[in-house]
């Protein structure tokens, strides 16, 4: 149901190729960074010309990441439209499909860096991304992936921010996208309905389909997930 292509080259070239291939969604993966080792929030950059779908998708993803990792969302409820002073805008604004640039965690934050380096953390990030794609693009199609910083002809050695404790932003962003690509390709037609899952670690304890528009409410007091009929 889903196909995935990784696009390389300069950012304008990647977007142009994704447009030609008629991708339904475009994802560029980065990690954030700061001179503070405690900064830690999830944010998504959208193009200055972003559609409502891009903005909603970005907000959904940022909130999901922040909830999962116990952080907060940055920007305007999780998104930076047009990036900070235009930075990142050119990475997205030439696309003709919904497009987001992810900065789920901070490479400069030692706790975040440990998550980014771990196979488990990469899997968790990939799963959240895949779920966001399933939610906003339930009909499947070609998903365009772009690894931030890496594979630019203009600056082939760019790897983005150094991770606290070692490693580079771009190499780990690529690992997350590789995992997400495997997950997306494994989804078949029957998986396309909206599903609710209870997981412990990587183990799915419970899974059920729910209506696309169902308002699912978690009652923390009662420990009850209410799914309407």
């Amino acid at each position: 149901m889903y196909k995935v292509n990784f696009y390389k080259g300069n950012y304008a070239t990647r977007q142009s190729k994704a447009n030609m291939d008629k991708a339904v969604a475009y994802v560029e993966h980065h990690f954030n960074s700061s001179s503070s080792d405690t900064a830690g929030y999830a944010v998504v950059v959208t193009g200055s010309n972003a559609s409502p779908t891009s903005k909603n998708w970005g907000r959904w993803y940022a909130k999901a990441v922040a909830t999962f990792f116990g952080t907060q969302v940055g920007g305007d409820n999780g998104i930076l439209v047009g990036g900070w002073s235009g930075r990142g805008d050119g990475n997205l604004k030439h696309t003709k499909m919904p497009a987001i640039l992810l900065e789920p965690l901070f490479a400069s934050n030692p706790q975040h860096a440990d998550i980014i380096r771990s196979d488990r953390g990469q899997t968790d990030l990939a799963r959240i991304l895949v779920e966001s794609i399933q939610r906003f693009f339930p009909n499947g199609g070609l998903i365009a992936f772009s690894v931030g910083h890496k594979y630019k002809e203009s600056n082939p050695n760019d790897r983005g921010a150094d991770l606290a404790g070692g490693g580079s932003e771009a190499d780990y962003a690529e690992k997350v996208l590789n995992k997400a690509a495997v997950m997306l390709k494994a989804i078949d037609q029957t998986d396309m309905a909206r599903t609710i899952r209870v997981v412990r670690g990587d183990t799915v304890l419970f899974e059920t389909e729910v209506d696309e528009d169902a308002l699912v409410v978690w009652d923390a007091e009662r420990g009850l997930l209410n799914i309407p009929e």
Partner: protein
Amino acid sequence: MKNYTTNGACLVNGRAKCLVPAWIARTLFFLSAVLIVLAAIGGCATIPSPQRDQPISQFSVYFNNDDLAGNTTACDAVFPVPRSSMSTTNGTAAALEALFTGPTPEERSQGYRSFFSVRTAGLLKRVKIKDGVAYVDLHDRRQELTGATSSCGSAEFFTQIQRTLGQFPTIERIIFAIEGQPRIFYDWMELECDQTNDNCNQGPFMKW
């Protein structure tokens, strides 16, 4: 009253009469003058002069500070710390050099922070101001500033520079380059070459 005139003559109450012969007085006067001149020349390097140690220009450099900002998500919230310079010629260069040296250890203990530190002290290659535009040419230290290209990191990087240069009223815009090439800087920062950066025109950095 006994005095020596500028040519070494000895005067007593205005009359040319002295216990020391005039030729000795002239020699002593000449030697004294030579010693004074030599002492003055040597003093440039070794003798502190209160007047010379006075800073000629005073300005602020701007760094992030989470304590003052109140949270860690305000990547563009920067705060001033005072600096001074002995430079008489280029205040903007002095300010950028001070900024690129980063907060002092004492300032860091007070919560000021920056990607800039003693490791990046030599980041500035040159700066000039022409027609309201500050052309800031940097040495290629990208490997020491990898975090400055993320959304938060770039907000820190640009805001610190913009606020520091904003003290100089003649500056309306800032155009950056690395080793004289704007395209390298803006590509590193993942910004496109467009009207906001004069389409990465290299001309002003070639005609310095």
